[in-house]
Structure formats: C-alpha cells, structure tokens
C-alpha cells in the first residue's frame, strides 16, 4: 500500500486506465446521443437500439432485430445492415465489449458492486445463488415470447433500453427500473444483472466468442495473488489463473480490463487472438 501511495496520482491513473477509458467511452457515447437529440448533432443519432453514425452508417441492436425476426417481422434493410455491422464488430473484433464499454447500465451495476464490496455487504454466504446460465434461459424466454406474442418481447421490458432511452428522450418513471437493478445488484446478487440475468449480455456472450481482442494469461509470470479473479465481474472466465497459461477464450469475458489493471506481475494483459503469447510461455509444468 505504501508503495502505491508513493507512486502517487499518475500511478493511480495507470492502475485504472481501462476503467477510466470505459467511463469516458460510456459517457461520451451517451452525450453524443443526447446532443443528437437536443442539438441535432450528426455524429450519433437515435439510441443503442438503432442509430445513425455520421448520418450515413446505420447501426442496430442485433438482438432486437433477432427478436423482431421471431416476432414475424422482416425489418427494412437499414436495420439489417446496422445489426450486421454491430454483430460483426463484436463477434470478430471487440468481444463482449458492449457490456463494459458502451452499455450505460454497466455504470449503475459497477457502482452497486463497488458499494457492495466497500460496505462489506458482500459475503459469499449471504448472497442469493443463481446460475450465471440464467441469462441463456432469459434469451430462450425472450425469443419464445417474441414468437408467441408477435412482439419483440425483451425490447418492451429491457432495463437497458429504459435507461439509455430515458437519458436521451426523457426518463419518466424509468428510474424505478434502474433503481430496482441497482438494489438487486447491491443486496441480492453480486453482478446479478449483468453477470447472471441480462439476455443482451448473454447474447453477446454467445456471439462474441471468436473475437480478435482477448485477454491473455501468462502462468509463468503469475504470483497467484488472485486479485484478478477477485475483481473480475465474470470470474468464471478466469478459471485458468493459477493453473496454466491460456487465452481467456470464454465469450462471457466483457473485456473490461480490470484484471489487467490490478495485476502487478504483468501476467495478464490484452492481446490479439493470433498473438497468443502465453502459448510459448510456461504451461502445465509450472514455474
């Protein structure tokens, strides 16, 4: 601790570089949307469900379009292209970065999580246990309900949409939903919404497995302090820590970079899939 204090503010910034980058990205995206609505800025218009980038490039939420497909609607080509662009970006490049770098709900749930740990509310034995696979059940339910009702079912209840739409177009009573998610994450389950229930996060978990940007773990450098696992909101994806070197290949990794920041041994870092350095490093044999 004293070592860190000596290193001072710059070191603090360095130790939170991805966190601050994420907050900056999340806030900027929302501000661009809000400016697009209020002042007519032509950078990002619409909202996270569907938008226009620079007034030309369509973007759309692929999960919303998928639900519409199940509801029996073939949407116009703009939305299809938009959904394709977003899908390919996260699937081939960004991984599940939507959840940690774009989604505004992430700020709410991260705050709940931070408060939970700071105030010692968090005890493993106190929290309600549900499986992290609940989100896949939620996807199945969303698609089934879309089929039965002929409506994109999740789009009418999504707290994410309620939040980002609310920030841009007026919140109404939407804050109650946001508060509900906050309290759920604070008191009921750690990372409850984003890490267990959210079907949109689940959708990106499923599709972003092949992505280029991946976290890489080097067992050779690891001192097994487990700080990365402790801070990871999807800690199951770091199952290899302390065992063997490997890429974090699970689609459930949100590429938030918290593990990279907390590691004092340079044992865990962002990498590209084909640059998997850890392969050459020590594997099962140990150090």
């Amino acid at each position: 601790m004293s070592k860190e204090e000596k290193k001072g503010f710059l070191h603090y910034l360095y130790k939170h570089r991805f966190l601050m980058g994420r907050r900056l990205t999340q806030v900027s995206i929302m501000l661009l949307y809000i400016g697009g609505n209020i002042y007519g800025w032509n950078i990002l218009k619409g909202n996270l469900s569907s938008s226009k980038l620079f007034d030309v490039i369509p973007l759309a939420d692929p999960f919303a379009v998928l639900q519409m497909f199940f509801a029996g609607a073939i949407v116009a080509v703009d939305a299809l292209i938009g959904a394709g662009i977003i899908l390919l970006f996260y699937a081939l490049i960004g991984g599940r970065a939507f959840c940690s770098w774009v989604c505004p709900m992430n700020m709410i749930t991260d705050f709940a999580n931070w408060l939970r740990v700071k105030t010692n509310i968090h005890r493993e034995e106190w929290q309600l246990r549900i499986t992290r696979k609940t989100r896949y059940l939620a996807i199945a339910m969303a698609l089934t309900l879309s089929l039965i009702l002929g409506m994109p079912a999740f789009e009418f209840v999504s707290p994410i949409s309620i939040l980002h739409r609310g920030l841009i177009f007026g919140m109404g009573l939407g804050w109650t939903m946001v508060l509900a998610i906050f309290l759920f994450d604070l008191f009921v389950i750690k990372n409850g919404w984003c890490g267990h229930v959210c079907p949109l996060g689940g959708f990106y978990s499923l599709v972003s497995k092949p992505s280029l940007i991946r976290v890489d773990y080097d067992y050779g450098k690891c001192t097994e302090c487990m700080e990365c696992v402790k801070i990871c909101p999807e800690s199951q994806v770091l199952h290899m820590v302390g065992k063997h070197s490997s890429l974090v290949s699970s689609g459930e990794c949100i590429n938030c970079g918290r593990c990279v920041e907390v590691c004092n041994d340079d044992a865990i870092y962002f990498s590209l899939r084909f640059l998997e350095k850890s392969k050459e490093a020590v594997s099962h044999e140990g150090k």
Partner: protein
Amino acid sequence: MSKGRKPPVNESRRKFLVRSMQAVGISILGGVVWGAFVKENTYDPLAIRPPGALPGDDFLKKCIKCGLCVEACANRPTVPYKNGKKMITLRLASPGDNKPLGTPYFIPRDVPCYMCEDIPCVVACPTGALEPDLVSSLVDGKKSLDINKARMGVAVIDHKNCIAFWGLQCDACYRACPLLDEAIYIVPSRNPRTGKHAFMVPQVDPDHCTGCGLCEHACVTEKAAIFVLPREVALGKAGKHYLKGWEEHQEINGYEPQEEKKEKGKSPESYLNSEDLLNE
C-alpha cells in the same frame, strides 16, 4: 423406490432432472409475468402514431424504439416555437406514459402533426415501421412522398359541445385544417331558434382527413370538441354486401366488377354447351 436406494451415480441424474424442472418452473413463472406485461403494455388502441405507421400490431412488431423519428421531428428546420420552447410533435413513450414503451406517438391537443412535406420522421425510420409507401403517391410515374396520404387517425366532432352547433360563429378547426374544404368543410343551415341566423357547422370527410390534429389543437372549447381518434376506433364499416348502386365505379368495394366479369365468362349458352353441366 422401496427396495434399497440406488447408488450415488443416479444422484447426479436426479439433480439434473430437478434442476431442469426448476428451470422450467422459473421460466413459466417469469414467462407468464413477462408475457402478460408485454401483452398489456402493447394494447393501446388509442395511440396516435406518426404518419406512415404500419397498422396496429405490425407497427409494434417492427418499431425498434430508437427514436430517430422523434429526433427528425425535433430537429427539422421548420419546427415551430411557442414561448421560446420547441413545439415537438413526436414523443417516445417512457414508463409512466401508459403507452407501449419506447414507441413514438403524439398528443394532437398539445402538439399536432404539422404535416411536413418531406416527412422527415418517415425517412428516418430504419426498420420500415414507418413505411414510406404508405405516404407516397405516383407523380409522373415516380413515387414521391405525399403527406396528404397520411392516415394517422380521423377527426371526430362532438356535436353537443361544438359551439358552432349551438349557432355560435366559430370556424377555428376549419381554418386550421391543412386540407381546408376537403377534410373539413362547412355546412350551412337555417337556425330555427332565431329564425334569422344560420348554423355554420363543420363536418369531417374521413376520405381526406389525415388525422394531423391541427383542428383539435385549434379548437377553442375547454376540452376539444373536435379530436383525433385512430381510424379503426372511430370509423364503422358497412360491409361488402352494401353497394352504392348509384356510383359508377364500383371498385370502391371491389365486389361488383368481379361479379360482372364472371357473368361475362359464363353466358347461359356457354354454360349449356360446356361439359361442366355433365360433371355437376
């Protein structure tokens, strides 16, 4: 089950089965609540939608709730101001509005649709929930946007509370109508109460009314005596068996011309001379 317990191998199977059934139980519980909310939330027969909106459920199926139509409406150069505040027609339903969440609608009494000729809201829609074809007409063989084709609703007059029906002089709605003398016209008649004045009452022609709500916005009564309702709510339907025999073009109901063609194809002679008779 009575004869000796199975070895622990089956415990995992039992656990799997129980877990599966738990998932089923939770799904059905959640699904019923979730589905019921969506069903209730999307039932709104009175919502007035932007121009070119697909009818009823088709609109809700396709609307991605992005608000691009709302932004196009708010940021058009022709947006009017009132007391220094933008008069924005379209709103995106937020929780508490009691409208299908995230979908665009407008309240004509507050801010009506100003019937922009370039219909920016329809052009902005990425999914086709607002369909340009529904607000287009053929000009010189080319499709071009035509806001007069919009059918957002239809104006309805409350004869009891419209002061023109009392014999007072008011033509606020008539003057406000962008399709003056087509969508709203004035019918004069004698006022028997005074014996020397005329009633000048407004009438709506649903064949021309776009449902923009400029009349409702302009209405001088405390609560508007002319107001826009969705067409499915406000209009009746005579049915195909009622024909307007006095009208030359019967394709209005698409019934008579087909009948005529059929008769032409099957004259009495051809009927007798064909082999159909034997087959029957």
